[in-house]
């Protein structure tokens, strides 16, 4: 797996003391870390191996054997049974729209608070932070009730609105601290060129802060993809379920055998892993950015 490199500062290249270099303990520590790594990824490997095993093979050889032959039927059957393509599309659409809208909303808020420094900005920040902190349980019933009244219940639209607001709370917090240190000269230059607030936002602020916005987009996308509680309550019909809801509800029914369960787990793991590989760089950078404040 390719990994974001932790670039070493140049200074470190001075030769380490050779006496330390040859201690046998050196490899013991690495071996211990590798054992731990194996423990961490073992459940995923076991899932992958058994997802392509036939039920008969599992029954006679158990979970650790190599499959006699690749048995795709379990995955294909499960895929068709839950109409997984549709769930993938629902999840993808929801996450994408939420990520885009939540980034825009965060930019607006942070533009006013970080660059505009509107009056009472600390209180607005506290307001948005608390919104991010609240457990969804305290909002769920009224949201459920209101969605029903407005005819938005069991529609992706309801989930999109809610998560746009929930995610943008964190975005506002992070982006405001970034925009507080936004170079004033750039804004002044734009003003001299006759740009108003709106033009300055799109022509100067957004392009300059694009790396941070990419980080936020990634976070919002993955967080929304992984959400379970509210989608479980709001998206009840088969046509609207997202990936975690479809899988979670089926698991609750407990009507599956070992190989079907691992097949279902595998098709839930794969998209998450793909996003992880695509977004890896942004994610690590983003965690670093989030940690500073």
């Amino acid at each position, binding site marked *: 797996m390719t990994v974001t490199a932790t670039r070493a500062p140049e200074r*470190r290249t001075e030769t380490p003391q050779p006496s330390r270099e040859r201690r046998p303990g050196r490899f013991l520590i690495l071996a211990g870390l590798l054992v*731990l790594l194996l423990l961490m990824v073992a459940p995923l490997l076991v899932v992958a191996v058994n997802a392509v095993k036939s039920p008969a093979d599992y029954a006679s050889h158990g979970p650790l054997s190599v499959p006699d032959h690749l048995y795709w039927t379990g995955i294909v059957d499960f895929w068709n049974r839950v109409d997984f393509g549709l769930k993938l599309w629902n999840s993808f659409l929801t996450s994408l729209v939420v990520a885009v809208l939540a980034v825009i909303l965060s930019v607006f808020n942070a533009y006013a608070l970080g660059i*505009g420094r509107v009056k009472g900005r600390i209180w607005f920040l506290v307001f948005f932070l*608390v919104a991010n902190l609240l457990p969804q349980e305290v909002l*769920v019933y009224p949201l459920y009730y209101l969605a029903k009244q407005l005819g938005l219940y069991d529609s992706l639209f309801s989930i999109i609105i809610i998560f746009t607001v929930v995610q943008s709370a964190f975005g506002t917090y992070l982006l405001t601290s970034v925009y507080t240190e936004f170079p004033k000269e750039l804004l002044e230059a734009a003003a001299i060129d006759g740009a108003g607030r709106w033009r300055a*936002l799109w022509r100067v602020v957004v392009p300059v802060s694009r790396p941070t916005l990419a980080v936020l987009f990634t976070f919002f996308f993955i967080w929304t993809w992984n959400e379970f509680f509210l989608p479980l309550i709001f998206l009840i019909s088969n046509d609207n379920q997202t990936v*975690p809801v479809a899988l979670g509800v089926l698991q609750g029914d407990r009507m599956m055998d070992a190989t079907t369960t691992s097949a279902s787990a595998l098709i839930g*793991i794969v998209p*998450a892993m793909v996003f992880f590989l695509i977004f890896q760089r942004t994610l690590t950078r983003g965690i670093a950015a989030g940690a500073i404040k």
Partner: protein
Amino acid sequence: MKNRGYAVYLIPGIVASTAVIIVPLVMTIYISFTKWTGIGSPRWVGVENYTRLFEDANFWASFGHILLLIIAMAVVPTFLGLVLAAVLFDYVAKRFSDRWASALRSGYYLPQVLPVAVTGIIWGWILHPSYGALNRILAAAGLGSLARNWLGDPKYALYSVMAVMIWFQLGYPIVMFMSGLQRIDPELYEAADLDGATWWQRFRKITIAMIRPELYVVLVTTTIASLKIFGQIFVLTRGGPSNATLVPSYFAYKNFFEKAQVGYGSAISTVLTVLIVVLAFVFLRLQNRAERS
């Protein structure tokens, strides 16, 4: 006066947050003082739900379980993550290579990218008493006497969930701490080396001291995450067997959507919310004080 005109950018954020966060929050607090099935109009009963709550053994049990989950989700991963991040940064990266360190870090982080519902499916299968991988592996290794009904026996269910949570959470502190460690000037370590400091001394005096901000962030976010835990419980045990793994969020969910006791469920989630907000403020105060000294 040149900052005028930014306030309009706050309007979308304020309108959206009011509709999705503030109104539902106020509604839930109001409903918590009523008896309501979700249909018709709520009947005001004063603090009745709260007095009932404090006499409800299930309510106290659910918060007792949270204490154990805080150990599994916040305390253990933070401690292990601290040691692992230090070893990866200060030992593996220097004695072996940065690639090794970041490859191990990514591996440990892997469980974090999966949707919680999928995590639940993976472990629900591994820990299943009859067809699960763990019991089959134990039997194959001649340790069949250790096989248990991991999630179905009230004696072991919560501990099993704790083990799953440690596995799930470990990567987060490692990534956070390693990104914090990059701020440390390597000369600090070299100077300590020259002064003859042991690894443990350097760990305490340099590593921990330098990443204190990350330490706070990790502890706050993981503790709050354990208070809110829902998805894994829903998929793994649904609070059972006989409420052995009941947590506040699932307890509230049950009252909302299974028992139609919306007033009582609202009281539970209001208490949970108060607890989270208080905790967050206490942590923030502690963090501020630590930063000042």
